[in-house]
């Protein structure tokens, strides 16, 4: 669709994230880098979609909306957005804000307020079942989002109704806005919690796209939770596991280092 796009790879996603966050001088870089390999797996084949407006396409809910830049980059590499539009990120009169809006082709649901996405995904999955469609709904959550009670309302609902066409991916990077999740609201025994709600649970290294892709194979009779162990700020040494990179924009010097480190990584 757009001639200037490159193959969808983790490296290409990281480069776009760094380029655009540097150009726009905005933060949330650590969160975006955390989900790069997850999006590479999702948009590199897991999500089946002929076009952004195909009613039978798989749905995707970016419930951790603050990593939207990674999603915009994936939409560009998928061919659903021009490089020029991607370059409007965080500009005035742009549809590409820090959090995604459904007005943009390829964004199925607007998100940004944590805790809403899984329930929308559950409704979307229930709708597909009622309509006899074989489409699936993928929801990408943050581990901090599991602080939200509504996430568990939706988890219980999906488990009870055995929504096997619903796949949740939890970006378990152990970081949240003000520090490590272990110190703020412990997310231990995450696998047991999802399993107790009636989900099939798979734990995976969230930075190995092929492994993530394999883990995303739906369960036959239950919703599937893929707990992806990730590192916030993945690929940039001074950003990894650093809470301040939830917020900070990069200086020119930091940008040069980040780009070089990111390119050296697979």
């Amino acid at each position, binding site marked *: 669709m757009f001639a200037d796009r490159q193959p969808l790879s983790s490296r290409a996603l990281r480069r776009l994230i760094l380029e655009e966050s540097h150009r726009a001088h905005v933060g949330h870089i650590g969160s975006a880098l955390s989900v790069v390999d997850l999006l590479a797996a999702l948009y590199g084949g897991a999500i089946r979609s002929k076009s952004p407006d195909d*009613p039978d396409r798989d*749905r995707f809910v970016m419930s951790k909306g603050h990593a939207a830049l990674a999603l915009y980059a994936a939409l560009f590499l998928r061919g659903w957005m021009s490089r020029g539009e991607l370059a409007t990120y965080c500009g005035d009169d742009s549809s590409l804000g820090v959090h995604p809006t*459904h007005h943009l082709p390829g964004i*199925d*649901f*607007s*998100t*940004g*307020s944590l*805790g*809403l996405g*899984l*329930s*929308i*995904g*559950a*409704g*979307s*999955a*229930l*709708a*597909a079942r*009622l*309509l006899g469609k074989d489409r699936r*709904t993928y929801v990408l959550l943050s581990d901090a989002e599991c602080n939200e*009670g*509504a996430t568990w*309302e*939706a988890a*219980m*609902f999906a488990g*009870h109704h055995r929504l096997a066409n619903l796949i949740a991916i939890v970006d378990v990077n152990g970081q949240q806005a003000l520090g490590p999740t272990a110190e703020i609201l412990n997310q231990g025994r995450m696998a047991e919690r999802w399993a107790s709600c009636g989900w099939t649970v798979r734990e995976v290294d969230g930075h190995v796209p092929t492994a993530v892709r394999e883990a995303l194979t739906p369960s036959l009779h239950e919703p599937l939770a893929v707990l992806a162990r990730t590192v916030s700020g993945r690929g940039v040494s001074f950003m990894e596991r650093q809470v301040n990179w939830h917020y900070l924009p990069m200086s020119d010097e930091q940008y040069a280092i980040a780009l070089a480190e990111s390119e050296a990584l697979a």
Partner: protein
Amino acid sequence: MRREFIATLCELAASDRRIMLLTADLGFSVVEPFAQAYPDRFVNVGVAEQNMIGVATGLAEAGFLPFCYSIATFATLRPYEFIRNGPVAHELPVRIVGVGGGFDYGTGGPTHHSLEDIAVMRALPGMMVVAPIDGPQTAAALECLWSAPSPIYFRLGKDSPRVAISGDHFEVARAQTLRQGTDALLISTGAMVAETIRAAEILADAGTQAMVLSVPCLAPAPLADLRAALADARAVLTVEAHQQAGGLGSLVAEVLAEARLARPFRRLAASQLGLGRGGSAAWLLEQNGLTADAIAAAAQTLLS
């Protein structure tokens, strides 16, 4: 109202397979006819109002018309942000059906009194806010609106009696004159209209002829009808089972101010949340100055 609502929904669902009924585990002896007739399209989500709205958003995006049922305060206030970021932001036809607007759940206490719902729901752009006066108008409103593209909030009375002169009629953004009179204008909404009509009858016995205007559609507001009635009014009294801020009285005040109409004006409404003592809906209305006698007395004071 709630039984007429479900009966009408059952009729509509027979010819429209998009209609679904979701409940957050409420509606004993009310929702069963739908659940029995359409088991595939009835979902009790459990006591989880936020999830109910999120699920409805996902269903509506796929083309369904989900009706989300609960007690009015639980249906609106608990999942308010989900309503805003779900059906409102996505402009999807989710219907929120709140039962027991005002003090209808009397002895249930303040947690069950829905006194802020009109204010918060009419603040949402594109949200239709509907408060029928009785069962027949509930059915008429649902028959008028069931397939509308916008999200809708239905504020229903629990067991509100039939208002003989309702006319079983509903139109979007229209008010209804239920009684003529030139001495004062009484404006009310929902089940409080019945009490307001009784107040007008008390006033008539004392020689004061009050016009009664019913506002069953609060958003989009019946601006033209309100302006016309207000322009002719000598004094204006609004009556609602709702907090004073943001409800019908606020709406009328906005219209008065924007139309530069200076009129003697008073808003009768709930004045607090819980009194430390509870009682029946009738007792609570009395405590809040919302009985026919109190309305009539307030109108007389305004005119004197």
